[in-house]
């Protein structure tokens, strides 16, 4: 222990000497960190592309695209701690946990860093504003509408969600349940959780088709789940019987649209989302705008974001992809 204590004590001493120098070499660029739920997810890679686009447009912006390996709050806290240490100018985070990130993000704000959340939100006390890709009510309605449009005579649908603790998916399913009255004859028979893992989602989708032989549609409001469900339908030879819909990425869903396992699905444009998040972070970090209830903040080519009393704003409506436009979008994201 004595050795390690000496090691750490020495570090602290050295730190005091260097502290001044470290702060002095502030960089000219506005450094915006785009923190995602986990790296290696197509959606977030596309968002990073959008953020880079905003950076190119704004000129003096450096985007740091980062995130943990697994979708855990603890992993994101470690990442955010290292961003605080780097004295970035802004952190734009898609949170794995609404509440658990609040203390560390508060610390970031205390040290003068602009904090916004996008995609998956943080509780209001942990950020200056939250950018929703769309409004939850619209998404909740959209996912059931996509399924119902293909079922004029009604039928059985099942939900394949991400994890039981996924903020996004739970909110959308809640909103969907509110509008079920508008879709008579449509019955939600089950909700299962694939944990946003391809293999588990596949097994859960296969299980659904076995448990409910008359199933007409699987709604997966997650980009991992929808692809796995479509593959499960193809493998079970139920193309045409079970329609897979929900939220997915065009590049990953092109095959499913082609095979007919999925007739249509929706998603906002993650490029637009990353672009808007970076733009908003820049506006706040450079004091060009201030967040607050009713504030209207510039998002470049995406127009302006209007904040509600919770400091949240919606970017745009979700967009429907089907056989008519999949070719055009599959190469984009």
């Amino acid at each position: 222990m004595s050795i390690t204590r000496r090691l750490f004590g020495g570090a602290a001493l050295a730190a005091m000497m260097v502290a001044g120098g470290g702060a002095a070499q502030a960089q000219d660029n506005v450094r915006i960190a785009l923190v995602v739920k986990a790296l290696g997810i197509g959606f977030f890679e596309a968002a990073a592309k959008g953020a880079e686009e905003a950076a190119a447009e704004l000129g003096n912006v450096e985007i740091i695209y980062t995130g943990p390996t697994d979708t855990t709050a603890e992993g994101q806290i470690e990442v955010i701690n290292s961003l605080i240490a780097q004295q970035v100018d802004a952190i734009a985070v898609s949170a794995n946990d609404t509440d658990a990130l609040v203390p560390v993000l508060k610390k970031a704000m205390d040290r003068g860093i602009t904090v916004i959340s996008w995609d998956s939100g943080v509780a209001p006390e942990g950020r200056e504003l939250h950018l929703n890709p769309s409004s939850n009510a619209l998404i909740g309605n959209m996912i059931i509408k996509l399924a119902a449009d293909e079922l004029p005579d009604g039928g059985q649908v099942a939900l394949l969600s991400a994890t039981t603790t996924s903020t996004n998916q739970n909110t959308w399913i809640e909103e969907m349940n509110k509008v079920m009255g508008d879709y008579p004859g449509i019955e939600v028979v089950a909700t299962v959780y694939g944990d946003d893992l391809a293999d588990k989602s596949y097994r859960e989708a296969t299980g659904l088709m076995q448990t409910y032989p008359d199933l007409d549609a699987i709604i997966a409001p997650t980009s991992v789940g929808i692809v796995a469900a479509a593959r499960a339908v193809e493998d079970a030879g139920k193309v045409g019987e079970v329609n897979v819909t929900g939220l997915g990425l065009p590049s990953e869903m092109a095959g499913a649209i082609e095979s007919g396992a999925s007739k249509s699905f929706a998603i906002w444009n993650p490029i637009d989302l990353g672009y808007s998040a970076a733009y908003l972070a820049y506006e706040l970090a450079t004091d060009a705008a201030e967040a607050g209830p009713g504030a209207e903040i510039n998002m470049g080519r995406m127009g302006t974001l209007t904040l509600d009393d919770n400091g949240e704003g919606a970017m745009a409506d979700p967009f429907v992809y089907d056989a008519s436009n999949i070719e055009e979008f599959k190469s984009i994201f």
Partner: protein
Amino acid sequence: MTDAASPRHVPNRLQSPAARLLKSWEVLLLAVAVAIFIANSLASPYFLNAWNLSDATFNFTEKAMIAFAMALLIISGEIDLSVASIIALASTAMGAAVQMGAGTPELVVIGIVTGLLCGAFNGVLVTGLGLPSIVVTIGTMSLFRGISYIVLGDQAYRGYPSGFSYFGQGYVWWVISFEFVLFAVLAVIYGVLLHKTNFGRMVYAIGNNATGAAFSGIKVARVKFILFLLTGLMSGIAAICLTSRLGSTRPSIAFGWELEVVTMVVLGGVSILGGSGTIPGVVIAAFVMGLVTFGLGLLNVPGIVMSIFIGLLLIGVIALPRLWQKWRP
């Protein structure tokens, strides 16, 4: 590393010749830690900053607390894979108590008692029924977290009293956090327990030869039960710190930590087969893992690359002494 492959080697039951080898292990690990420290300082202008280093300690303090107890357990030839799930259950119990109006002292008691109960449950199954600990704790790993999921579902417990935040967010003096002080105190306590007491020697004896130990008059089952109890206790304490740091409880809390704790213990030079290892080794391993993840984080290295690095480090540090032995008989 002193096990099956080199049968003539005598592990450090008493301060045997093996002590020298183990010392060299820690020296090697310490050299790695210093090298990483220097590399980090050169690679990032932000590394040598007192507050940043203080923040970095949070990456490992909670896991290291459990690793101390886990080290003793592994030295005795057992393992506990349910530690992360004990955190989840203890945190859930504390969260439920908050909803019923419990204050900070009650929460601490609840966290610790839940940990002890879980540890006792593991201990009874392993020592009472004679079941293999790896099987038992894989079972309780699902069981404990499962209970949290049943209680909480997709909900979260919030509203912890403001005084409770001290354990995970408070500072004792300047940049020295409460968690770091607790980590240091526990390191000393476990170091003394393992290396300076009869109990510690019993742990080594059991790990080397449980039957022999039993014939020497050591109550093997009782010692192992106490070790499971200690591991549960440390998980409860880690749950208090982590819950306080996060300010909320979800059933997915500390997911996957059991493997990180075991990695820390093995990296610290504890033989996974039991019988040898030291607490200073585990302490250095905690720093190595903390410094690596934080240093790479400062360079914005993706997490998956960090995992690869930790994996290579683990294999490297374990393989090096063995290669050393082969080349210099």
